[in-house]
C-alpha cells in the first residue's frame, strides 16, 4: 500500500513537490526495509526512458523561447530542460516505488493475502504459475541451448551468430510448452481444481492494528492530496 501510495503521489501531484516527497519517502522506506542497495537495477532499467524524456523535452518542448544552446537544427530550452527534469523525477520515483514493492513483498505472501481477500483460485493460479514458470522456462532454454550445441549448432560468438543460433530454440520451446498445456489442464481437473468450494488457507498473514492504520492512512492521504491538488485548494510549487 505504501508503494502504491508513493507511485500515486509521484504521478498525480503536480509540480516538484510530488516526485521529491515520494523520492524521499521511497528512500526512507528502502533504508528501513534494508533493500536500498538492491534498487540499482530498477534505476538502471529506467535509463532508456529517462534519456528519451530528457532529449525530447529539452530540444522539442512546444512553445519554449528561452534557449540554452543549439545543436544543428535543434535548440535546447530552459523550459524544456526543467520539464524534462520534473518528468524524470516522476519516472524514477515511480520505478523506485515499484522496486520497493517488488523487493519487500514475497509473491506467495501476496497471493495468499489476495486469495484471503477474495481473489479467485483461477486468477491466483495464473499469477502463481507465471511467477514460478519463468525461471523454469529460462532453465529449459538453457537445456535446449546445450542440446543444440551438443548437436553442432553454434550458439556463441558475435551477436548475429548468436541470434542465428538462438532462433531454432523458439520452435522446441513453444511446441513443448503448448504440448504440456492439455496435460496440465487434465492434471488440474484430476486434482479437483474446479471444485466450487473456497480453498483451504494454509497460511495466515499477520495484519496488526499498526499495519492497518498505516495502510488506510496512506490511502486516505493520497486521496486527500490528489483531490486538494486538482480542486485547487492546495497550491504546490
Amino acid at each position: 500500500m505504501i508503494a502504491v501510495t508513493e507511485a500515486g503521489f509521484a504521478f498525480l501531484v503536480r509540480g516538484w513537490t510530488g516526485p521529491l516527497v515520494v523520492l524521499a519517502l521511497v528512500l526512507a522506506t528502502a533504508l528501513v526495509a534494508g533493500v536500498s542497495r538492491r534498487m540499482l537495477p530498477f534505476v538502471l532499467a529506467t535509463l532508456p526512458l529517462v534519456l528519451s524524456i530528457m532529449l525530447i523535452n529539452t530540444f522539442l518542448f512546444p512553445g519554449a523561447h528561452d534557449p540554452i544552446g543549439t545543436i544543428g537544427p535543434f535548440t535546447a530550452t530552459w523550459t524544456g530542460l526543467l520539464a524534462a527534469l520534473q518528468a524524470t523525477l516522476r519516472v524514477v520515483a515511480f520505478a523506485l516505488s515499484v522496486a520497493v514493492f517488488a523487493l519487500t513483498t514475497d509473491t506467495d505472501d501476496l497471493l495468499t493475502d489476495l486469495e484471503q481477500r477474495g481473489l479467485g483460485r483461477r486468477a491466483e493460479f495464473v499469477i502463481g504459475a507465471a511467477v514460478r514458470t519463468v525461471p523454469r522456462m529460462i532453465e529449459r532454454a538453457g537445456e535446449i541451448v546445450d542440446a543444440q550445441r551438443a548437436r553442432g549448432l553454434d550458439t556463441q560468438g558475435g551477436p548475429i551468430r548468436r541470434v542465428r543460433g538462438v532462433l531454432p530454440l523458439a520452435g522446441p520451446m513453444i511446441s513443448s510448452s503448448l504440448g504440456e498445456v492439455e496435460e496440465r489442464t487434465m492434471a488440474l481437473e484430476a486434482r479437483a481444481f474446479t471444485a466450487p468450494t473456497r480453498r483451504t488457507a494454509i497460511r495466515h498473514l499477520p495484519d496488526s492494528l499498526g499495519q492497518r492504520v498505516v495502510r488506510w492512512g496512506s490511502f486516505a492521504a493520497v486521496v486527500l492530496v490528489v483531490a486538494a491538488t486538482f480542486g485547487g485548494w492546495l497550491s504546490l510549487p
Partner: protein
Amino acid sequence: MALVLSGVSYRYAGTQKPVLHGIDLRVERGEVVGVAGASDAGKSTLCLVAAGLAPGTVGGTLAGSVEIDSEATTSLKPFELAQRCGMLFQNSVTQLSGTSRSVWEEIAFGPRNLGLPLAEVVERVEAGLAALRIEALASRDPLRVSGGQAQLVALASVLALRPAYLVLDEPTSQLDPEGTQLVGDALAGLAGTAGTGILIVEHKTDLLARLTQRMLVLDDGRVALAGATEAVLADPTLRALGVEPPSLVTIGREAATAGIHLDPADLAMALAPRRA
C-alpha cells in the same frame, strides 16, 4: 462397488480411427488390476477413459459405458470424479501444479481445492509423505526434485485426495528398483487396508506379477490377453505383444531349454501376489 468399463470404444476429437475397441474391464474395491502392452497400444488412453478425463476433459467420442460405483463418469463433474478416481499421469512433471513452493504445499494442493478443514489437509499431506517415505522432501521446491522424486510427489498428491479408485499410468517409470519396491508396497497397502481399487499400467512385469491379481494386455486398442496375472504373464505370445515376461518366467523357460526341470507350482507361487 467397482470401476466398470463395458464395451468401451474411444476416439480422440478430430480423428476417425478409434484408439480403444470394445474394452471390458472391472476393478473391484481392494483389487489391483494390471495393464501391459506395447507402445501406442492404447494404455494411456485407457487410463484417461477409466478416470473419466476422456471424453470429459479431453473431448472425443466414447461408445459403451464407464461407471464408478454404478455412476456413469460422464454424469460426474471433474471435481467429483477427482474424489472418486485419482489419476497419475505418465509425465509426473506436468502433473505438478507449478504454483507450490514446497513439496508439502504441492501435496496439499488437491485437499485444499476441496476446501477441507486445515487439520484434515495436514493429516492427509503427512500421510501421503509417509506412505511414500518422502518426508525429507517436504520443504523442497517441487520443480527442483529429480524425475523419480517428482513421480513420488505426484503419486502422493493423488493419494492425498483419497479416491476410492486409482488409475496409474506407469507410476514407476522413472524409479530405481528400490523406489519401485516402495511404490509397490504402498499400493499393495492401499488396496489391502484402505480397500482402494487400483488400475495400473506398467512395463515392469515383475511388479505386475507381485502386485496384481488380474491383468490384461492391450494390442492396437484391443484386449489381446486377459485373466489371472500368472496365466497372462506365462502366455507364450506375450513377447510378440510387446511385453517382456517377468524374470521368473524367463528363468523357467531358459531352465527348460537347458533341460532343467523347475516345478511349475513353485514358479506359480513365486509369481503369485505377495500381500503385506
